[in-house]
């Protein structure tokens, strides 16, 4: 802090002026310098190569970047990735409207993709490559979005604490015997929202409400922001069971094969609901200015090579019928999926959210 006294050197500037001497003022010079540096940075930050795509991605960066890097090396098209929350990105696309810098929207939840389609944010893609590669139930009717890999919302259990026979259905986790033994994702999780939507579509509102209430009590404070944390908690025995997508378990086992954790496919008995399925998918943004490059990327991702890479990075099930899943995963034909069409996840979303909030999940 400057505490020069009046009468001492406080009058210096005036005296200088009268002598005709002027030193450059410190702050003024500092500010000018900063402005120049800033201008240089702005120009370097925004100088674009001619061919580039902007991908808004709700998928974890390390699960998508390697695939995009291969695409980039192959085609020379540079890709800018904005990784963020799925719902947040839908909100962002909507707010940006025609001015959006995004060319593609990639995410882990069909409900969000369908929602984006309903909002008119995505562009139909009449491409034979897509129709050949991805079965119709895994994409929008007009190909506004295309599923790329399948994932199942299942039960992870600690093998030293739980026997697999103890859980038959996801709904069992609401049973009081699991008090303080269940880890769940928070209410903002698209997996939870989609999962609850499917349960609600199959079992009805009342049954789902009871399930959620039981789950809330059983989970207590074990509410996580990330599925990887749930798996971690189960593997360490902090909780006995957790609700996650299947690949989190296999990814954990890939790095720590000795971890006492395993996946349990629930609801497989005769007449039961089936495992809750969702897809990760991609859509081209309606207002893209790089349609051709964007189509190239989609084409690459649905091709056999792209499918293998995309699904294996995350230990998901490829949707291309001729591409095999990672050998560590259970054979896809060995279990059943719930029969709720993916596109319905969007319309089911809002009532599900209302229910989740009424129950008071975090």
């Amino acid at each position, binding site marked *: *802090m400057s505490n020069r006294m009046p009468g001492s050197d406080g009058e210096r500037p005036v005296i*200088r002026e009268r002598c005709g001497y002027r030193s450059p003022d410190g702050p003024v010079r500092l500010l000018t310098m900063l402005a120049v*540096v*800033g201008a240089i940075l702005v120009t370097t930050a925004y100088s674009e190569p001619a061919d580039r795509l902007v991908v808004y991605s709700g998928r974890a960066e390390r699960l998508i970047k390697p695939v995009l890097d291969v695409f980039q090396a192959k085609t020379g098209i540079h890709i800018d990735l904005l990784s963020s929350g799925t719902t*947040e990105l839908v909100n962002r696309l909507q707010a940006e409207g025609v*001015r959006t810098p995004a060319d593609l929207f990639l995410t882990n939840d069909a409900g969000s993709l369908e929602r984006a389609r309903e909002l008119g944010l995505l562009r139909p893609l009449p491409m034979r490559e897509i129709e050949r590669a991805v079965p119709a139930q895994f994409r929008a009717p007009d190909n506004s979005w295309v599923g790329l890999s399948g994932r199942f919302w299942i039960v992870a259990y600690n093998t030293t604490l739980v026997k697999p026979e103890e859980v038959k259905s996801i709904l069992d986790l609401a049973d009081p015997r699991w008090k303080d033994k269940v880890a769940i994702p928070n209410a903002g999780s698209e997996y939870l929202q989609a999962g609850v939507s499917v349960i609600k579509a199959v079992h009805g509102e009342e049954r789902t409400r009871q399930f959620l209430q039981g789950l809330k009590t059983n989970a207590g404070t074990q509410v996580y922001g990330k599925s990887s944390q749930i798996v971690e908690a189960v593997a360490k025995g902090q909780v006995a069971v957790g609700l996650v997508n299947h690949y989190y378990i296999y990814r954990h086992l890939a790095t720590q094969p000795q971890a006492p954790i395993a996946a349990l496919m629930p609801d497989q008995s005769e007449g039961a609901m089936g495992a809750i399925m969702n897809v990760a998918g991609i859509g081209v943004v309606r207002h893209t200015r790089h349609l051709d490059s964007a189509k190239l990327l989609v084409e690459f991702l649905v091709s056999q090579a792209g499918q293998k890479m995309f699904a294996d990075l995350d230990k998901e099930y490829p949707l291309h019928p001729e591409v095999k899943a990672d050998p560590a995963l259970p054979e896809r034909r060995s279990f059943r999926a719930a029969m709720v069409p993916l596109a319905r996840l969007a319309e089911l979303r809002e009532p599900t959210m209302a229910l989740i909030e009424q129950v008071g999940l975090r």
Partner: protein
Amino acid sequence: MICAPLMYIVYLALSADSSVWSRLWNTRIPELLFNTVSLAVSVSAGTFVLGVSLAWLVVRYNFLGRQVWEWALVLPLAMPTYVLAYVYTYLLGAGGPVEQAWQIWAGPEGRVFSPHSYAGATLVMTLDTFPFVYLLTRAALLNFNLSYEEVARVCGASRLRRMLTVTLPLLRPAIVAGLSLVILYVVSDFGAVSLLRFQTFTYAVYQQITGRYDQTAAGVLSLLLVLFALIFLVIERWFRERSRFYQTTGRYRVPARKPCGPLGTGLITLYMVVVFGIAFGLPALLLIHWSVSAVAEGAVDVRFLGFMRNSVFLSGLAATCALLIGTPLAYLASRWPSRLNVLCLQAAYAGYVLPGPVGALALLVLFSHLAPFWYGTAVVLIVAYIVHFLPAGLQTMEPALQQVTPNLEEAARSLGLGPVRTFRETTLPLVQGGFVAAWVLMFLQCMKELPATLLLRPVGFDTLAVRVWLEASEEYYKLAAPSALLIVIMTLPALLLLVSKDWRAA
């Protein structure tokens, strides 16, 4: 411009359907209110004990290495809360080093408390914010007039009684000011509570913004948070008005430092080492260790230069703009304190009660309606920084300007200089120190800012803070470390510069 976000939040919340209100009231609000208040209370208690005791030891006792500790105890301020939080999720987490050590002692069933809890959040926030209280109390103790204590002593008051009835009450303004900074920090913190999964208002607002298509619930929670902060500020101000102390004589002696024997020195050093170690030393060492192995694994590439450039660029530009905006506000209010000018200045303080996610929410919607051209560009982010951090800058700029007597400017004018040149050549050189401090302060806070950056960052514009969060929230400790370390390193020199001039570092 600065008030617009605040007004928008009020509008959004009031336009919400009453069913949204009642639903939130029945489900989330009681828990959030309880969590936020109890965290603020426990962190205040913790920082009070740590801050006052450390300041007392450093000022009143003489022991080996005192000067070093005097500085070292400020360093935790260089550690953003989310960095400390992620280090502690590792340290205290299940199977982490602390638990393993504990199990050697207590057997394989031994558990330490989870970092993802009230206790964990309290610990992290306390360790991160106690320097506020420490710095202010230390400054007050250094200016303390010893004669009050001596009078009490002559009157036969015991040591404890002197402490309770004379010393502490005299330190009260400083302690209260420190604690109020701590509380504002706790209430508006996003990084630590989100990594520790402790539900407070600010965290809930962020979850609502990112998890829902409909933003009215976020607006409702935001308004409550703003009101909460506002009520607190009013109480704090009232409290401060009531307890003013004046030193009537200019005569005062620097209190003699009590020399300590080897035992005393040992105990004090142990205390300092423990506090400093868990708040800064150990986390910093871990970050270095992780960074080294991340570099060895080739996880650090040229992209880091880009993240660094983005951080410096955004923070530098925001701090510069804030300085340019703040100068006329502070200047006009101190030279021509008309009602309008003072009002403008007070309005600029609105950002204080707008925690990161709240301001970001308001700006997102405002920009998409009013200036869609700028939506999704760095402009929005810079505006968010300015709104949020201008108050902190103004607090440093205002006293700097007030210390310059208007006589000097009048003299310059009477010697024939115009108003602009007078300001440039008379006032500016005199307030230079204060203004540089304000710039550095705002720059630092922008570097560390997280929630608004996450919500508003343009495409391909990740900053160091964003990288830390992206990696740490997936529990990729090693990958988060280089960015975190860079933030700490870049913050350190500025912090030391600030502390040597001014305590209001964050």
